[in-house]
């Protein structure tokens, strides 16, 4: 019924953003049992199930009357002091019948659980671990079992094995095993791919031993969850059957029979439906909650809490404002006077983006300011985790839910777009600023032809007929040099190659004739030969249209190829801002210099490739002082203690380093 129960919750974060977002804290070393005990609903459910089981098991000791004893003076009576839950039509004590009936009912449930697990664990493990033909056969059998309405087969079995509840519940378990086998199989499939399994196999450990020692313990969590879920399902089916009078012969007590007895008094005293059916419902609930608690205990710490159980809110409520920004304004965040460049197509000033997790928030982009001039190609260069993609997304106001702009302004055409309402902002997207992403294939809606998608965007910006939009879409495809444009327009995304898909994405971006194009790692996901073509296309389009391009990349080759100027980002802030020529010939920041030295084309043959030791610190570990301190060969103690500002060098370049002069003098020696 709920086959998804027991699978780890999916984490849905784009790969290119995930790198900018702090990783979830690793699972604590607290024992499994201790963590389970922190789940009140799970503990209560487990306690309830144990209590019910004990009460039914000891029914002969605690039940006020024998199950079949009739009190002929008090038939069909409501609750009294003699009969806490009243009596049925034959004057039998309902409470006693429920206690005795529980013995039969709960053993029936146990039979189902044992059958489900006994079949699904070995078969699921074998199918997942061995794969190939075994897996195919198991899959076919599972498909077959899942497409039979099991109740009818159960009834057929009941027709043959009269009043043999355990054979009936066993049959039920066979059908249940089908779904559980599938859950175990897919869990094993992912575990099998892990390195330590391959290592054990290479080391000559036998398959059986690997499965028992290494694979099975890992699927134990999902198995317990499934056992609990099937406890609930089996109880529902079992009481249903005994309610119909199938499986247990008439005078014998069972929970289903008690509901049936209650239903016989429906016209006189419908109250009796409540304790009898309620007991069944509460017990099923206990199984369900127990399963949930086990699942949460098993999977907590496996995933960050992004997108789990929270409302999806990409369209964050924004301020409604048409305010335009004066040529110079005072930034509230820093009380600093900001001059808006008249030639600027885009001004980003003191932009900060934070990542909210529950109660705490972490900055991932920290006080970033830069200017993109008309007709300029500006690069944003940095490693994974430097915050460059997040900066790009925040300009368009399309950050994922967990991220928000916490300070700063984004000024486009004299307007601060960071405070615009969603509706006003959507007028700017595509017509003022457009964006091309990294993964072209996943950026196109798989359900529509690429031509209709481009035409839709055309119609969003130009008020034209459908036919005219179609023609314009084909023109755009020609503009991005797609061969047989009219033919390509009729295709679906899955029928395109990566390079073609990226051309379609560029056509989408060009559809609104934007003045600014943001290209977020536009060639990273493509083959090397295609990369050069796409870069060439971007250059041609820039020359044809005169638009400004903001190119986000980690690739210095791309920067050298296309950009006029570049800002270098490191750990969420800008460390250097200069023309490409200056950056390549005289880098002022040790990080920029380090990156240049790593360029393979500068290294002589046979020499080892230099690298910068260490890694970019994660946002929650940013030090107070210089964030590059740990990896810097120029570092002095004062670098670690004081906050380093983005300052002006003597020749007016922007650099965030106390020792830029040392770096500069060194590089001038290298280049001369």
């Amino acid at each position, binding site marked *: 019924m709920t086959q998804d129960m027991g699978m780890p919750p999916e984490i849905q974060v784009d790969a290119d953003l995930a790198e900018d977002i702090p990783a979830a804290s690793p699972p604590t070393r607290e024992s499994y049992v201790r963590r389970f005990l922190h789940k009140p609903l799970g503990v209560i459910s487990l306690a309830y199930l144990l209590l019910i089981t004990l009460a039914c098991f000891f029914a002969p000791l605690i039940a006020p009357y024998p199950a079949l004893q009739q009190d002929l003076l008090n038939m069909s009576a409501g609750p009294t002091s003699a009969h806490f839950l009243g009596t049925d039509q034959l004057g039998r004590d309902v409470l006693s019948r429920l206690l005795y009936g529980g013995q039969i009912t709960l053993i029936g449930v146990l039979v189902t659980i044992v059958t489900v697990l006994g079949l699904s664990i070995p078969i699921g493990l074998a199918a997942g671990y061995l794969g190939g033909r075994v897996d195919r056969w198991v899959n076919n059998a599972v498909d077959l079992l899942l497409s039979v309405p099991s109740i009818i087969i159960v009834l057929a079995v009941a*027709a043959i094995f009269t009043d043999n509840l355990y054979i009936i519940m066993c049959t039920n378990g066979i059908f249940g095993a089908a779904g559980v086998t599938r859950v175990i199989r897919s869990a094993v499939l992912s575990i099998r791919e892990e390195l330590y399994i391959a290592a054990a196999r290479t080391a000559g450990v036998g398959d059986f031993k690997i499965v028992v020692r290494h694979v099975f313990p890992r699927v134990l969590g999902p198995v317990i969850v499934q056992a609990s879920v099937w406890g609930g399902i089996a109880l529902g089916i079992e009481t249903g059957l005994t309610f119909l009078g199938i499986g247990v012969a008439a005078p014998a007590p069972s929970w289903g029979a008690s509901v049936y007895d209650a239903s016989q008094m429906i016209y006189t005293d419908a109250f009796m439906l409540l304790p009898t059916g309620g007991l*069944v419902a509460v017990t099923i609930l206990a199984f369900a909650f127990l399963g949930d608690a086990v699942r949460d205990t098993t999977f907590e710490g496996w995933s960050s809490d992004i997108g789990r159980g929270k*409302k*999806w809110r*990409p369209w964050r409520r924004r301020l409604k404002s048409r305010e335009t920004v004066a040529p110079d304004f005072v930034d509230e965040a820093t009380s600093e006077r900001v001059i808006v460049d008249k030639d600027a197509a885009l001004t980003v000033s003191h932009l900060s983006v934070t990542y909210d997790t529950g109660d705490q928030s972490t900055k991932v982009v920290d006080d970033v300011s830069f200017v993109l001039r008309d007709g300029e190609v500006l690069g944003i260069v940095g490693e994974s985790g430097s915050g460059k993609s997040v900066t790009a997304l925040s300009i368009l106001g399309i950050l994922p839910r967990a991220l928000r702009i916490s300070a700063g302004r984004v000024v486009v055409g004299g307007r601060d777009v960071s405070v615009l309402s969603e509706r006003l902002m959507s007028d700017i997207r595509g017509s003022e600023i457009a964006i091309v992403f990294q993964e072209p294939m996943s950026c196109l*809606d*798989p*359900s529509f032809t690429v031509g209709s998608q481009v035409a839709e965007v055309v119609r969003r910006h130009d008020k034209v007929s459908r036919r005219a939009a179609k023609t314009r879409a084909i023109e755009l495809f020609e503009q991005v040099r797609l061969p047989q444009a009219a033919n390509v327009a009729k295709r679906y995304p899955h029928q395109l190659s990566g390079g073609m898909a990226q051309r379609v994405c560029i056509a989408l971006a060009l559809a609104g004739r934007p003045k600014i194009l943001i290209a977020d790692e536009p060639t990273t996901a493509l083959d090397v030969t295609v990369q050069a073509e796409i870069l060439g296309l971007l250059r041609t389009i820039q020359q044809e249209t005169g638009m400004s391009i903001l190119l986000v990349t980690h690739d210095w080759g791309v920067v050298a190829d296309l950009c006029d100027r570049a800002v270098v980002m490191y750990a969420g802030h800008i460390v250097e801002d200069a023309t490409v020529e200056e950056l390549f010939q005289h880098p002022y920041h040790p990080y920029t210099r380090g990156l240049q030295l790593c360029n393979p084309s500068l290294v002589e043959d046979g020499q080892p490739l230099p690298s910068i030791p260490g890694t970019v610190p994660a946002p929650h570990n940013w030090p107070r002082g210089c964030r590059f301190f740990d990896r810097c060969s120029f570092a002095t103690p004062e670098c670690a203690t004081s906050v380093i500002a983005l300052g002006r060098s003597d020749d007016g370049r922007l650099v965030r380093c106390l020792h830029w002069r040392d770096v500069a003098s060194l590089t001038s020696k290298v280049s001369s």
Partner: protein
Amino acid sequence: MLRLILRRLGRSIPLLLVVSAVSFVIESLVPGDVARDMTLGVATVAQLKALRIKLGLNHPVWYQYLHYLNQLIFHAKLGNDAFSGQPVTTALAPRLPVTLSLVILTTLFCAVVGITLGITSAVYGGGLGKVVDFLAVAGFALPAFWLALVLQNFLTVDHRIFPSIGYVSPSVSVVDWLRSLVLPVLSISMAPLAIIAKQSRDSMMNVLEREYIRTLRACGISKTRILWKHALRNAVTPSLTIVGVVFISALSFSVFAETVFSLPGLGSLAVTAAESHDVPIIEGITMYFTLLVVAVNLILDICYALINPKVRLR
């Protein structure tokens, strides 16, 4: 498209064969003696022998099965009712529309309400999200037969809003037909409704996180258009496969609803047949149910192919 249909039909043949064979073999294991059961133990040895020959019980199981298949495929016959001697198909025919009405209405109700609830709760969250969560728990915990009793008690015995038992054919009165089915449908809808609402909510949330949604936003397409054109189309596609699961579970639960509300359908007949060991009838119902599942899965496959270009264009 025709090839797709033929391929799916070809795949369902093993299912039918296996189901019929398994049910046949299980039933041939009957520890009791059908002939003796039928004559209530008052027949002479000679009479019993004659009856066994008449029923074909003197042949080995595989021969009986082949005979059964032959009858089924070439004569569309499912044998005779063990008690009345009436052909099984004749006994089942008038009951089929009842079960079909119940199960199809339940499936439609769950599909429409469940998908709507799931999708809107994914988009707007808040209270609707809690409704889906509640449904998921309630659908799992409340046994269908008990819910049927409570509904029957509350809405028919206490308030007489709906008829408490019985079925009215739509050829007599469409309104009464619907009225007679409202409570049975509601009583067995909880669990399937929960399944489909949860699934379509997860599916919609998953789609909304996709990069193409972000791309459309970045192109300036409005929220409404993105939601109800692009996201909806992509989110509903996987929900279609769940409709098959809903149909199968509705078919299973129909047994309880038909019994509680005294609907003269296949499910209630299966219960009485199980109680009276009427093997040919049970076998016949099994075949009917399996054929229904095959038909519904085929229809869903075709719908799936129609809205999913990846399948259609393969």
